């Protein structure tokens, strides 16, 4: 998935739940429609929290990818 242009990466590794999601919400609040945000989270709770919020807020979950001890969540601000 090297073709996705990431506009901003939020490194929330080591942050406890719900820090990673809250940082994403903050970034989306200030961002522009169409921008792509990447959240790096080592918190297990993010696996459910982030996709659930993205669905509720009607943004686009582009990709979830597991890495060494953390996951990448790539989200496009859709509206």
């Amino acid at each position: 998935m090297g073709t996705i242009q990431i506009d901003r990466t939020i490194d929330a590794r080591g942050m406890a739940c719900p820090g990673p999601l809250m940082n994403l919400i903050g970034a989306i609040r200030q961002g522009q429609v169409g921008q792509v945000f990447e959240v790096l989270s080592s918190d297990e709770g993010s696996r459910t929290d982030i996709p659930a919020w993205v669905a509720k807020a009607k943004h686009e979950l582009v990709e979830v990818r597991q890495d060494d001890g953390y996951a990448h969540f790539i989200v496009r601000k859709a509206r």
Partner: protein
Amino acid sequence: MSNDVLILGGGVGGTIVANLVAKEVGDHARITVVDTTGVHVYQPGFLYVAVGQDDPEALKRDERSLLRREVKLVVDRATFVNTTTQKVVLTSGRAMRYDELLLATGSRTVLDEVPGGAGAHEFYTLEGAVRLHRALQEFQGGTIVIGVAGIPYKCPPAPVEFAFLLDDYLRARHIREDAQIKLLSPLNRAFTIEATSKVVQPILAERGIELTGFFNVESVDPFARTVASLEGETVEYDLLVLVPPHRGQKVIEDSALGDERGWVPVDKNTLKHTRFANIWAIGDATNIPISKSGSVAHYEASVAAAEIAATVKGEPEPSHLYDGKVTCFLETGQGQATTIQFDYDHPPVSPSPARRWHWAKALFNRAYWHTVPQGRL
């Protein structure tokens, strides 16, 4: 020696550090606290003022009376920190030199960042809590909506506590059945911490407090009396209480000492500025992803004080680091409360609500003045 230790902010953190450093270093340093008002305000009391359980005047003390004699207090506003000359400029035009600087400047609330939200009620300032109390006294029925307009905000349990205390207040006035209480939560649960949510959610249901999850307040239409979320939902209200967006103080932003919201980047263990070896920050002012609360400032203060004292005395840095400790009480109404305790390595735990936690909180609120600012607790 002629070390100048300068502390910006006479809140809980700044006051403890000033007193502890003064005690530790004796005449090795001149210690000065710069505070905007010279009045120390106990912010955890605002919640009780809003529901008529506390007197606003009882939450204030002269900052001078809380500082050791050898600590100098300057009542003025810091407007700019020049890290090259190591001087802080004050509104009066005076400039103060520092060798060690502590930023204990707290946070500020910016309700006008919410489109249409400037007229909403809040209990994050003493004036706001007094105004909200007046509005509640006039309230005869309708929908009271409690929402969160930005994260991070001070005292994460506060909106939930307010919902419970509001329920008590309306019951005591015998108008509970004429009122609806709606709590809008930024997450898909009542509270940021899952373990605490599990304790609190059944009580919310039992008290008839309606919980809406994933509702991050984005804007208010004060004419239509509706509040809209970032997630695209709208809720009607008769009385709106918002947790305002917070940001760091203007002096931090104007001096480029913080991030885009004015939070000071520090090492989460040493509390030292990531770019300056002689600047520390504690309490709400930092960017540490942990509760903004008096409890955090209180625990961080002893760490920052020990480091500053060691620097003044030319001793090696102490091994005592901030471990992320947080202790909070959470009122669940009807004379009961629970607690929340955690640190960087231990997830939060909350016991079942009990009367003893409510009394412990009430006792702490009174004992505060004689123990915490002096660094005795």
